[in-house]
């Protein structure tokens, strides 16, 4: 009997891509509805099932971010960055968390690295949007940047 093939690299149990997408989308829906505990339950499960993927970690970081816990979200985004060091998206999220923590200089460094890593990616676009947000004066003016 052959082992069923998994669509997700490094998953603990064989998973189809559809199952992974369903879990993550459900978690984001819970998050948008403000049901953070339900979202956490799903995302912790997804992170355990996909230990090599940065996507559940980014979702967990976003969960913390949406609750205003920026330092905690930064820690989670850093874990995602360790899983995908050449990806711009975790970097952009780190920059976002730093920006909202008031550490403007550090945030701008992270965002520029995100732009340089993958210039045409979604992460770079997100980093660019955050830079424009900072330049508009909407964020980052509350504390002296670290």
């Amino acid at each position, binding site marked *: 009997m052959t082992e069923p093939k998994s669509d997700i690299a490094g998953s603990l149990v064989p998973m189809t891509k559809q199952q992974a997408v369903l879990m993550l989308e459900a978690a984001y829906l819970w*998050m948008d509805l403000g049901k953070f505990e339900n979202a956490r339950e799903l995302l912790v499960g997804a992170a355990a099932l996909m230990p090599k993927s940065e996507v559940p970690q980014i979702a967990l970081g976003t969960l913390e971010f*949406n609750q205003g816990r920026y330092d905690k979200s930064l820690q989670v985004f850093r874990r995602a960055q360790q899983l995908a060091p050449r990806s711009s998206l975790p970097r952009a999220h780190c920059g976002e968390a730093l920006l909202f923590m008031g550490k403007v200089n550090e945030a701008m460094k992270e965002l520029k690295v995100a732009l340089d890593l993958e210039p045409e990616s*979604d992460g770079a*676009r997100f980093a660019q*949007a*955050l830079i424009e947000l900072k330049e508009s004066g909407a964020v980052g003016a*509350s504390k002296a940047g670290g």
Partner: protein
Amino acid sequence: MVVKIDSSLPNRVSMSVTTGRQSQGSTFGEKVSSGLQAAGSAIASGASLVGGVMPGAGVVSAAVSSVSSLTNMPGSSASAAGYSATGVVTLGGGATTGGSTVSTGGTATPNLTGGATTNQVGAMNTELASMTAENSKLLQVQIALQRENQTFTSVSNALKTKHDTVKNTIGNVH
């Protein structure tokens, strides 16, 4: 006067009829002068129009929204709340400063009942000062409105990009 001498005929004297002197058209100076007068009247009428419209601008400030209202919207998501409920995003403060205090000119009615010229001049001065103050406040409102609009656009763009990024990331999970 032209004198024509014909050898076959007895001498005749032909005189052309004197015509009236054609007056020169309006000179450049005159045209410039009339143009300036026309422009002056146009500016005056424009100013009166603006004067009629400007006090209503206070109403515009009432329509100023702030990003903090994102949290109160029924369809707002937690990510939008994250951007607006932090206190880091500071919007709306500037717009309300002018909008709430701009009066519609009720206090600027000139006092012309005294009859004395000095009173009229004083009243006009008061009115002018009041109008200047109003215009200054309206300008502040406009600036605040513009700044808020720019900030709102930036926040909206960042949230949209974030949403699209999440959507694509989930779709491309591997």
